[in-house]
């Protein structure tokens, strides 16, 4: 064009990862939303505890610690293979990606199974009292998130199986990993609130 200076951007890349990618920002914002959701649940837990004369209510034992603690370690451990998978594909190692995803998904399924075992043994239901309502709701919410981790990672795994990801195109793996680590990390305060707060804060 005459009399006009032009900046040519045709050499710029089409694929980026991390903070340069809009999708990465969208996932961070989604995590902010999710974080607010879980924070609201925790605040509601303490609010109900504040108005309750006894917490947990009479007749309910404080939750047992052994199984949930082991299970927490299982869930925390699942972040390690996920991290290795993510690092692996950044260097173009698609085998490492597949194996990492597989182990992480297996650990998440173990977590879910142990949660079912644990909560089929508790003496109260969600419709017994407010304590039951909030505990079951938090567990249900978080378990639904772990379930969505499994489903999402199966989709990512299928794409990886078909050779979709490589050293340059791995944003999908990164985003999936970000979400995975969040759901694992958010379990730590939930674990502390559900299993330790009834014992320590009396």
């Amino acid at each position: 064009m005459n009399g006009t200076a032009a900046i040519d951007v045709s050499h710029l890349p089409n694929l980026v990862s991390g903070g340069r990618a809009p999708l990465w920002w969208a996932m961070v914002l989604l995590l902010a939303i999710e974080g607010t959701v879980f924070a609201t649940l925790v605040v509601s837990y303490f609010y109900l505890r504040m108005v309750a004369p006894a917490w947990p209510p009479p007749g309910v034992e404080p939750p047992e610690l052994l199984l949930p603690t082991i299970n927490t370690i299982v869930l925390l451990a699942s972040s390690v293979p996920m991290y290795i998978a993510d690092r692996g594909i950044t260097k173009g190692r698609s085998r490492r990606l597949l194996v990492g995803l597989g182990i992480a998904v297996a650990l998440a399924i173990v977590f879910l199974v142990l949660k079912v075992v644990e909560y089929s043994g508790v003496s109260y239901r969600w419709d017994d009292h407010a304590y039951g309502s909030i505990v079951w709701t938090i567990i249900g919410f978080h378990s639904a998130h772990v379930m969505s981790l499994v489903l999402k990672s199966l989709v990512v795994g299928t794409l990886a199986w078909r050779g979709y990801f490589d050293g340059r195109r791995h944003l999908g793996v990164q985003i999936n990993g970000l979400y995975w680590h969040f759901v694992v990390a958010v379990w730590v305060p939930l674990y502390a609130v559900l299993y330790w707060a009834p014992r320590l804060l009396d």
Partner: protein
Amino acid sequence: MDQGPDLRRAAADEHLELERTWSSPCGLIGWFSHVNHRSIGRRFIVTAFVFFLLGGIQALLMRLQLASPESGLIDPDTYRQLFTMHGTTMMFFFAVPVMEGFAMYLVPLMIGSRDMAFPRMNAFGYYVYLIAGVVLYGAFFLGMAPDAGWFAYVPLAGKTFEPGLRMDFWATMVTFIEVSALVAAVELIVTILKQRAVGMTFTRMPLFVWAVLVMAFMILFAMPPLMIGSVMLALDRTVGTHFFNPAAGGDVVLWQHVFWFFGHPEVYIIFIPALGMVSSIVITFARRPIFGYKALVLSLVATGFIGFGLWVHHMFATGLPYLGMSFFTAASMLIAIPSGVQIFCWIATLWDGRLVFRTPLLFVLGFLVIFVAGGVTGVMIASVPFDLQVHDTFFIVAHFHYVLIGGAVFPLFGGVYYWFPKITGRMLSERLGQWNFWTMAVGFNVTFFPMHQLGLEGMPRRVYTYVDGLGWDNLNLLATVGALILTLSVLIFLVNVAISLRSGAEASADPWAADSLEWATGSPPPSYNFHPLPVVRGRYPRWEKAEGPPVVVIGLRGDRREVLVTQTMEATPDYRSVLPGPSFAPLWLALAATVAFLGVVYDVRLVPVGGLLSFAALAWWHWPREHERTPPWKAGTAS
């Protein structure tokens, strides 16, 4: 400049190619695959105005009922449904979506981009909004509308006092529409952070874009608590949890906390983008740069923060500890400071400007007067003893209508007159616009000013009638007359729009000689918004005469939907993002999510079914399309 015919033909070919790439499909079926930000933004605006009319008709019916004492026009049950639907409609289905619609339409144009960052998410948000509205109104016309008020206080909204499905519809559809708002918020933030024109640093961003950014962040943190609240309400009602049941260890005030922790920021979510509209209009019609740009930006951000610290002032009557109430009184008075700073900045700009008294500016002036009046009563009821006196009376009704209609609807109408030429390519009639403004200003004040007095005299809100002889008759009749004038005003507006769409004067690209980038392209803009892309060198890109030749960006491909992504802070070119074209995936996802949400109302077993269907729709959505499967460095032949 003399260009050769070859050059001209090449330029025309480029535009043709872009038009082919970016245009949305025609036809009824094609309609459901649109993803373009202007198409979706227009849908949001039009749908929101339909809900505005519905909510307005409900208000008019209530005013007709209250025109005389002990009137039998409307029975108490219908009246309760009317005020609940009026509040729910205006807050959830009109005010927030209409602001989102304008933001979606205008933000990419103002920041010089071709579309938003995630076009399909936009479309998904719209279907969710539409479905939520249609389901709620379906229930209304079947006589099953919610009737516990728009803030659905328990225990009134609980199963004991509301055995039917009414509040189930409310709880699920409100949660559903929050999804829509959250999607829009994420989308707007990412677009503003990553897709601004080259050179548009944060200090050069138009104030409307700043306002949208603050609104979107507020949505992000305000809506999730209400989602949890309405999920708890729905669980209490459907599977027998006890969150709000004191007999089993629950607490009713918990609902008020989660509701108002959302509900107060909600007011600012509506109001802040309206302030952005005011700034745009003031700059253009005062014909000078804004006074105190930085002060205005900081005030917007401060309002966004303080807005989260006020929620308890809705709950002064619940008997909270005095220290807590004093804190919230202080915070409520504090918010007057950033509001005052903004008002003075606009007044200073207008003071020094060469004012052009067209309809948009009239609505802004109306906003200044009415909003300040609403702010004054706001400071009054921030004080606990006064609030306890007027709690649940018409004084509160008067206050929040002054703030919401004055603060948001007047700027919105100004914004409609201002941007209508950009969106439709036609001017609205100036004469009808002036009639629209004056009837609205008069009608509004005649309707709502008497309510202050009625409230001070003790008339309670949300009661379907009042007995004769309390001295409330004349003021109520006056308020109803005002409502009729307001109705006339809205009718004038509709006539104006209809005439303009049929035979209005054609709008040029920039009919107001305005400063910002949306006026740098056609009215209405071409489907690709800009070609070549603009480069920004100042805060008022259309007004500033920069040194040297104008600079543009070239080099985006025309055969697929490419947008330029810039670096977050410096706004320098970073990469070319490829956007998806028309798609039905958003519709399928919205329908699948509807199954899950209706499951909460009808049969809980549908919830996991809807969840799995949503997962399937999402997987299909994200599955790479044909052209994405083989990356260019593997294909060899690709460009």
